[in-house]
């Protein structure tokens, strides 16, 4: 998904002169060990290029760099002219913002004491028998963040409490008493907030105090505390929101950056690979192994497949048909229901190739597909590579000797200790002195 997006946003040069795969001055260092240094290699479309070298020459490292398992220390790998890194687009931006907002809301909830907020907004309405509507919620929210005094009820008695319900300022038997007291006290607190020397506004007092009641008052330090409370809740809330937002967004971007050239994005762009030691899913059947390669072709997520939508069912049937096709190409059609772990080495290699083919990749990396096989099994694999080429995919194949691969390769390159020492047609490589020395182990 990401890779496709990257393709759209990157500029595309004219298709004719860019090779399908362009390995450009790639070096890979592991600490002080240089596995590959300054490698240049092109794989044109519909061609077979083989990379030859003795064990430890860096062939597998090249495969890993191309398939995204490791990122090259320097240099670049381009496929269709793209680096296959995901670009920072609006999708990533909005994802970061969304996750940031979520984290921000969580930290803000903790900062403003969500427990007390719940008490003030949800529970107090129940006590006072108010309806639970958008308006009442908004009013109560505002009152909480302004630190206004409120009325609460406990054991049949009405209490004047602070917004968070922690401080009980007065208890009255009568509701009307409690309300008028609350209004008086609120006026006093508001006046205190306006400034230490200010006298409560006359109009404020007028609607608050009923003449028959004695003036309610609170000690100065309590008034100060209540007056300061408002600012504290607000500042804490905003600080929590902003801090959480920044942290969440930054963390999302950091994690996204690490996975920018991830193997799955590379695979989705159209590069499939096999491994030197076949890596199958040993507990699945042969057919299921190939179906994993076809995963992307089946539409629908968890909900669609639970409901068994038509699109999903059809995709699944189509995938099974194509999986069978891929299996018959490699000659495993009779073993579809066997457990993959029970296959022979040659069978495992073929299955891995079938699985890679099934992804519909335009470039297939085969890492030493002939290692450890008998002579006739090697021939079969070579024939298979020829068939892959005929089907229109390019192949980059590694091996440790010129011979079997020369039969189907369009070009060959030879690596020695991470350095490319020769490149050319199979015939040229067969005549190259140094190449003969390395691959046969006999100095000439």
């Amino acid at each position, binding site marked *: 998904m990401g890779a496709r997006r990257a393709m759209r946003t990157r500029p595309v040069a004219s298709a004719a002169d860019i090779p399908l795969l362009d390995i450009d001055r790639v070096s890979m260092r592991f600490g002080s060990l240089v596995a590959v240094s300054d490698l240049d290699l092109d794989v044109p479309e519909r061609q077979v290029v083989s990379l030859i070298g003795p064990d430890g020459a860096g062939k597998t490292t090249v495969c890993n760099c191309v*398939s995204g*398992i490791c990122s090259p220390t320097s240099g670049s790998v381009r496929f269709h002219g793209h680096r296959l890194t995901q670009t920072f687009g609006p999708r990533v931006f909005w994802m970061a913002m969304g*996750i940031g907002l*979520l984290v921000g809301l969580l930290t803000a909830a903790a900062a403003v004491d*969500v*427990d*007390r907020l*719940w*008490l003030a907004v*949800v*529970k107090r*309405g*129940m006590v006072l028998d108010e*309806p*639970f509507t958008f308006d009442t919620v908004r009013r109560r929210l505002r009152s909480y963040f302004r630190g206004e005094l409120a009325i609460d009820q406990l054991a049949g008695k009405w209490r004047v409490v602070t917004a968070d319900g922690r401080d009980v300022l007065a208890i009255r038997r009568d509701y009307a008493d409690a309300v008028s007291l609350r209004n008086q006290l609120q006026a006093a607190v508001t006046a205190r907030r306006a400034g230490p020397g200010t006298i409560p506004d006359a109009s404020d007092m007028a609607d608050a105090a009923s003449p028959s009641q004695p003036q309610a008052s609170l000690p100065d330090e309590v008034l100060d505390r209540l007056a300061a409370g408002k600012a504290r809740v607000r500042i804490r809330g905003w600080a929590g929101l902003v801090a959480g937002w920044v942290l969440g967004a930054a*963390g999302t971007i950091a994690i996204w950056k690490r*996975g920018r050239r*991830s*193997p*799955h994005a590379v*695979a*989705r762009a159209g590069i*499939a*690979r096999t*491994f030197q030691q076949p*890596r*199958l*899913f*040993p*507990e*699945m059947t042969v057919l*299921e192994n190939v*179906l*994993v*390669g076809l*995963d*992307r072709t*089946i539409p629908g*997520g*968890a909900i669609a*497949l*639970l409901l*068994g939508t038509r699109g999903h069912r059809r995709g*699944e049937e189509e*995938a099974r048909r194509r999986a069978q096709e891929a299996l018959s190409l490699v000659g495993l059609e009779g073993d579809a229901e066997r*457990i993959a*772990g*029970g296959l022979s080495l040659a069978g495992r290699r073929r299955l891995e190739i079938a*699985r*890679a083919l099934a*992804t519909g990749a335009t470039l297939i990396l085969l890492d030493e597909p002939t290692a450890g096989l008998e002579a006739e099994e090697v021939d079969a694999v070579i024939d298979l590579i020829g068939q892959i080429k005929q089907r229109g995919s390019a192949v980059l194949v590694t091996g440790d000797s010129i011979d079997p691969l020369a039969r189907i390769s369009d070009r060959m390159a030879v690596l020695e200790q991470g350095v490319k020492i020769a490149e050319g047609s199979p015939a040229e490589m067969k005549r190259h002195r140094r190449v003969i020395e390395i691959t046969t182990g006999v100095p000439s």
Partner: protein
Amino acid sequence: MAAAWKWISQRWEVVALALLAVAPLFVPALGGALGGQVTTLFIYCILALGLNVMVGYTGLLHLGIAAFFGIGAYVVAILTVPLFPFQIGWLAAAAVSIAVTAGVGFALGGPVLKLRGDALAIVTLAFGEVVKVTLRNLEQVTGGMKGLNPVPPPGAGVTVAGTDLGLAFAVDPRWFYYLALAALAGVVWAMRRLENSRLGRAWAAVREDEPAAAALGISATQVKLSAFAMSAAVAALAGCLYAATLSTTADPNAYDFNRSILVLCAVILGGLGSIPGTLLGVAILVGFDTVLIPAADSLIQQLSGAADRSSLLSLASWRLAIFGLALVLVMRYRPAGLIPSRRLAAEWGRGGR
């Protein structure tokens, strides 16, 4: 005869469902305390199937499943109890609860994706404890140690053909029995479907070889997140049923590490990644605990007479020892579980015992 047996063993779930569905008609005890115990058993089965998505299918060790169970129970309670103004129907509340809990699972999954094995186990364990303590401390929202109650029975206020459903649930535990059984059947059906779908294959692929799956274009991130969310959603469904059955969320300690471990043990005992195995594991561990032991104890009491009250004579005080012994024996002789999944059976068969 052989053909009939084959048919039965292939359609074990249909047979079991039919038997359990008619059981209350023939076993009157299911209308009493036993019915409540069996309902709890069903709920544990659902919870274990949810955990199985993480541990069995995707191979992620999860020690905090009880937290999702708890979140599910509390959300449904918050939305239905008379203490709060929401008071929506149980079905709608359950839907919201499942969605919310799946979201929480998703949110937990995000930051811990890179972790595997023991590191993930520790994070999920800590998450479970955090949720428990949070539930305890948010006293206004969750009622603290008192929990939230009374959770009205499902269908409260709904009248079908002259019967008040809420009243029916409150009077006859068989309603809960059938509700939990229907939910369990639905979850088993969904799990079977998932197992053999692209999602199930992707879970298994990530479990068996993550780099190989990535090389085929499977995003381990998405696959693991979906496992987290799915597991949380199923656990939440169990939580919704639990709160409805008890008509309270109970206190937060009901959702602690012990419950997570009990369910995990059941999954491992029965067979990781195997639906019948998981159900059998729960039936043995939880059923042994809640159904068999009380029954056996009352029998022992009768036989030995009221005079002898030695704790050595009560099975309840031996239960942990029996648990431990059973687990050791199973792990020694059937390491893939009592009913191993096809995939795990293949692996153990290949590796030799």
